[in-house]
């Protein structure tokens, strides 16, 4: 890697951490113009920046507003770089179906998890919010997903998570997916009780959990 390329990656990463959407966009265009490998620019620039932002989030230097603006910058860069990915690079990624269970319309936590997973190279099928249990099952089967990620903010809707697992069992497809759960009222003990494969307390933790569950190097 040339010094110049390295400098550009660092600048991309800094622009994402610095929540600078315009700068990220300009640097991404620059990378394309200079014929720099798009995948490398994403990984060593955008994703590196998002990972640094995730660390700041964990250490409480960044909060949700900062993380969202970092992700805005990352997505602005992705929009420019993605069309330049080689075809194969777009095919090999593990898919994750994510959504907020029925009865909940707050999705800020789910969105943060989605952002961090996307930054880590996973392909996300985002169902959105207020999703009935059966739809998680149908979409996961259809997408041939590796992971189903369920989020809730409300205790009243936690049963919906258990219902997803029951429906997977009923359809004889439980073994095809790792099911992870998270959100305000959720705990490890709840995850154990409903037979989920894992629980994560926050977005960066969810990335580690997914990588561990499907055996992808961190």
């Amino acid at each position: 890697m040339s010094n110049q390329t390295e400098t550009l990656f660092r600048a991309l990463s800094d622009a994402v951490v610095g929540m600078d959407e315009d700068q990220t966009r300009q640097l991404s265009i620059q990378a394309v113009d200079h014929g720099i490998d798009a995948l490398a620019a994403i990984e060593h620039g955008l994703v590196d920046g998002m990972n640094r932002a995730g660390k700041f989030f964990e250490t409480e230097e960044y909060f949700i507003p900062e993380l969202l603006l970092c992700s805005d910058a990352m997505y602005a860069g992705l929009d420019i770089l993605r069309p330049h990915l080689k075809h194969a690079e777009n095919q090999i990624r593990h898919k994750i179906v994510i959504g907020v269970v029925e009865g909940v319309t707050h999705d800020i936590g789910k969105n943060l998890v989605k952002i961090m997973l996307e930054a880590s190279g996973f392909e996300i099928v985002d169902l959105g919010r207020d999703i009935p249990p059966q739809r998680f099952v149908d979409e996961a089967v259809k997408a041939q997903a590796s992971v189903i990620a369920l989020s809730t903010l409300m205790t009243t809707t936690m049963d919906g998570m258990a219902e997803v697992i029951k429906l997977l069992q009923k359809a004889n497809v439980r073994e095809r997916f790792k099911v992870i759960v998270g959100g305000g009222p959720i705990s490890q003990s709840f995850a154990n009780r409903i037979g989920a494969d894992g629980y994560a307390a926050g977005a960066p933790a969810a990335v580690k959990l997914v990588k561990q569950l499907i055996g992808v190097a961190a």
Partner: protein
Amino acid sequence: MSRDRLTPIERFAAYQRGEPVDRLPCVPIVGNTAARVLGIKVSEFRGNGPLIAEAQVAAYRRFGYDVIRIFTDLYTQAEAMGAKVHYPDDETAYLAAPAIASVEEIASLQPANPHQDGNLPQHLEAMKLAFQAVGKEVPVTGALTGPFTTASFLIGTENLVRLTLKNPAAVHQLCEVAYQSALVYAGAILDTGCTPSLTDAMCSTTVISPRQFKEFGQPYLKRLVDFIHGRGRAVTLHICGKTGPIWEAMADTGADCLSIDNAADLKAAKVKVGQRVRLMGNVPPAEIMLQGAPAQVRAAVRACVRKAYDNPKGLIVASGCSLPVETPFANIDAMLDAVREIAWPVNANELETELTA
């Protein structure tokens, strides 16, 4: 277990003066669970002040706790300003759509008229009726959502938190109109005889930074607290989730009591702000009150008391947040019974030895 010697109002008054009491004050924060006491659906509360009052009074009589809080959901004020709220058949309402979608529309927002808009008149009626029924024996409060949280329902949470960094002036404009609305509502709540009880969920450091709380949360809360103090009432402030880094700023609002979520530690709160404020908390509502057995509720109550019974400004044993609708009655009873069992004065030795036992 036998019922209590003192009424809640007698208990609070004696506790405040440092005189003997029968037990510590105890508040399982009962919201829509009150529907279960009457055997009705949660949606029946919508637009029905007398029914909300009847259920809340019945729940108080059933369990014998120390504060009634007229509350169905956090959206009442935002709804009265134009937000769309969805009312499921038998669960707590939720936000369907914010009142506005863009910064340009902020100027179109008006403070709500509490005697006319949304479901505010019905909530005020519930407060008035509950106060008339039992206000002489138990403090009756009316839920008042903080301006920053209402602002998040007016323009959408993600929108609002982005704006805190991109357009702080717009956030202040939103908070100001939400504050004006809350101020008029607070006055109307006081007119019913009830005391406003402040909740500002989105101010949690789970969402925004301490610096942002000081900029967008605290100033508006302080103005509301000052107003309520001006009418001669003490104020409780609840913020959900993590709050450790903002306890001092919360106390700086002038609130007399901080209600601490189970995501934060009562002992640490005592050390940091216990000289300035009463503490209220923090038995986990979901993991213990909803899903636990009475024995776990008892253990959780004893852990709270062990951590903060000696808080200089006092302790109210409470749930860390509003109870889930389906919280078993046995667990609410167990919470009160655990506090009765500990009694007063608290035998610290007994609680400490449990740790090593």
